[in-house]
């Protein structure tokens, strides 16, 4: 598990350190261990992917990081260090401040997490008021900039969520997630419901934005191809355990754990293998 973990972080403090994290769900008479002794780091500006099928605990980790786990789930062991501070020992007030300004989250069904009776402008207002104390005009101005960042025309601020397509709503949620320049953006299946062009656009934007702003991303998906493209390093989870961590390229070309190999086999390929590799070579030639 720790073998291939990056060693190049001696000088800089990682944005997120997870050490031996265990999360249990209390059942009637027993406990179910959803996350079992998981450790990994996310460096500054790094995109780290967590792969695995549903129920393997990847979303539970995401919830644990922002302390959003509700009973019967509880963190039974380990440490979560955000910029070196242990989030598990923080008091409620600090956590409330940390959320969104340090760690923001885009959920799987995020496009449905917008309030249907508020305009887009109003969806931003609450967060800006609480964290920054912005007034209406200030918040609208900043909201407009953020919408532009994710490729939506700012003149649509006064529209309601139902007037946007799914992809646009998802981008609005990402814009809200980036609003306070967080250190860590957690994205739990952010583009699963979107078509590939929109997915590519959104993720290229994320890819460019993290270069610009230097935030780290925890990217959760079950689309291994996509994850390999986007992420720097990938962790593969199986039944609560992290079975393999490695650079994206290694996970693709040299998967070590049988489960990772099985995951690759379960994906039908869009292109014939040789065509896929041919395109990759072409891109690299153009790049070089």
């Amino acid at each position, binding site marked *: 598990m720790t073998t291939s973990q990056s060693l190049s972080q001696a000088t800089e403090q990682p944005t997120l350190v997870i050490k031996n994290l265990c999360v249990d769900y209390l059942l009637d008479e027993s406990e179910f261990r959803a996350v079992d002794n998981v450790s990994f780091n996310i460096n500054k500006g790094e995109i780290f992917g967590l792969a695995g*099928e*549903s129920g393997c605990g990847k979303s539970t980790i995401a919830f644990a990081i922002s302390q959003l786990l509700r009973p019967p789930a509880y963190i039974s062991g380990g440490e979560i260090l955000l910029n070196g501070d242990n989030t598990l020992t923080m008091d409620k007030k600090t956590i409330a401040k940390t959320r969104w300004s340090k760690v923001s989250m885009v959920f799987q069904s995020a496009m449905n997490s917008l309030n249907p009776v508020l305009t887009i402008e109003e969806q931003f207002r609450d967060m800006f008021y609480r964290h920054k104390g912005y007034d209406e005009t200030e918040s609208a101005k900043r909201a407009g900039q953020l919408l532009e960042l994710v490729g939506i025309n700012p003149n649509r601020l006064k529209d309601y969520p139902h007037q946007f*397509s*799914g*992809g646009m709503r998802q981008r609005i949620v990402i814009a809200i997630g980036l609003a306070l320049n967080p250190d860590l953006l957690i994205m739990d299946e952010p583009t*699963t*419901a*979107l*078509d*590939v*062009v*929109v*997915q*590519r*656009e959104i*993720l*290229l934007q994320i*890819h*460019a934005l993290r270069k610009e702003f230097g935030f780290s991303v925890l990217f959760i998906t*079950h*689309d*291994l*191809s*996509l994850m*390999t*493209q*986007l992420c720097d390093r990938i962790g593969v989870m199986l039944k609560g355990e992290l079975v393999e961590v490695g650079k*994206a*390229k290694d996970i*693709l070309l040299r998967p070590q754990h049988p489960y990772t190999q*099985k*995951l690759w086999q*379960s*994906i*039908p*390929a*869009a*292109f*014939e293998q040789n*065509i*896929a*590799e041919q*395109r*990759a070579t072409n*891109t*690299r030639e*153009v*790049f070089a």
Partner: protein
Amino acid sequence: MTLLNPPSSDILVTVKNMTKTFNTGKGLHKRQVHALRNVSFELKKGRALALVGESGSGKSTVARLLTRMHLHNSGEVLYRGQDINEFNTHRELAQYRKNIQMIFQDPYGSLNPAHTIYHHLARPLFTHGHVKTKIQAIEKVNDLLRLVELDPEATASKYPHQLSGGQRQRVSIARTVAIGAEIILADEPTSMLDVSIRLDILKLLNKMKNEQDMTFLYITHDIATARYFAEEIAIMYQGQIVEWGNTSSVIDNPQHPYTQLLLSAVPNPHISFTEAAIEGSELLEQANTIREKSMAPIVETVEYNSQHFYAQHD
């Protein structure tokens, strides 16, 4: 249903220049949404046509019009040579809907949580008169469950919440078979399932296509599964089919700019985003131009090869 002039027996459904416009808004905000513009395609027996496009391209509207949940504004939909708008009596319509069934995206929403799996499958058997007695029904339900590779003893008495997503989708598939459908409109049947289960469901659909000669309209935004499952593919954008034909020909040699855009965005694990950054930014710059151009009405169709066509715009 009587058939006067059965056309070539291969073609079950012919869609010709189908157009659908929705009116939205009130008063000053009244406007028209052109959901489908001159859409034409054919569904052939025992084959699958993949309808691929982004959300809002109108692909689900096609399914809704085919099942007559909405009526199209103009154009024709022929089922075995008969215009579906002419099915006006309850009996004709029921007969038609028996033959054309849908599988929905969300297996969690399409089954009634208050009923057992047995009920879900036995009810269409009774309503459509496939079985008369309970003994027959139990036997048929067990057959159906075996067909979709579920264990009859363990599954029949369970409720939907006791099944996994993949198992539920299998029940939805069994239900369309129970009704006796020959055409299945599958609207993103695997997109809510786990990766590791997706392929199994596709294999099951493939088996039904090959062994039971069922016909599929496979609506998806996932090119990879379309390639795996469908013989033919039609790429939709903004209510128009911009490119269609043999699946591998279209995917390997895309001609229409939108298809090229779509295919270049399909995740290819061999190209990382850092490497694709230059190509990617070009793509992003071009994307809106391509979108605008592809929005324009189609003026001409061009034949790339005998089984592969693409559209040209103004």
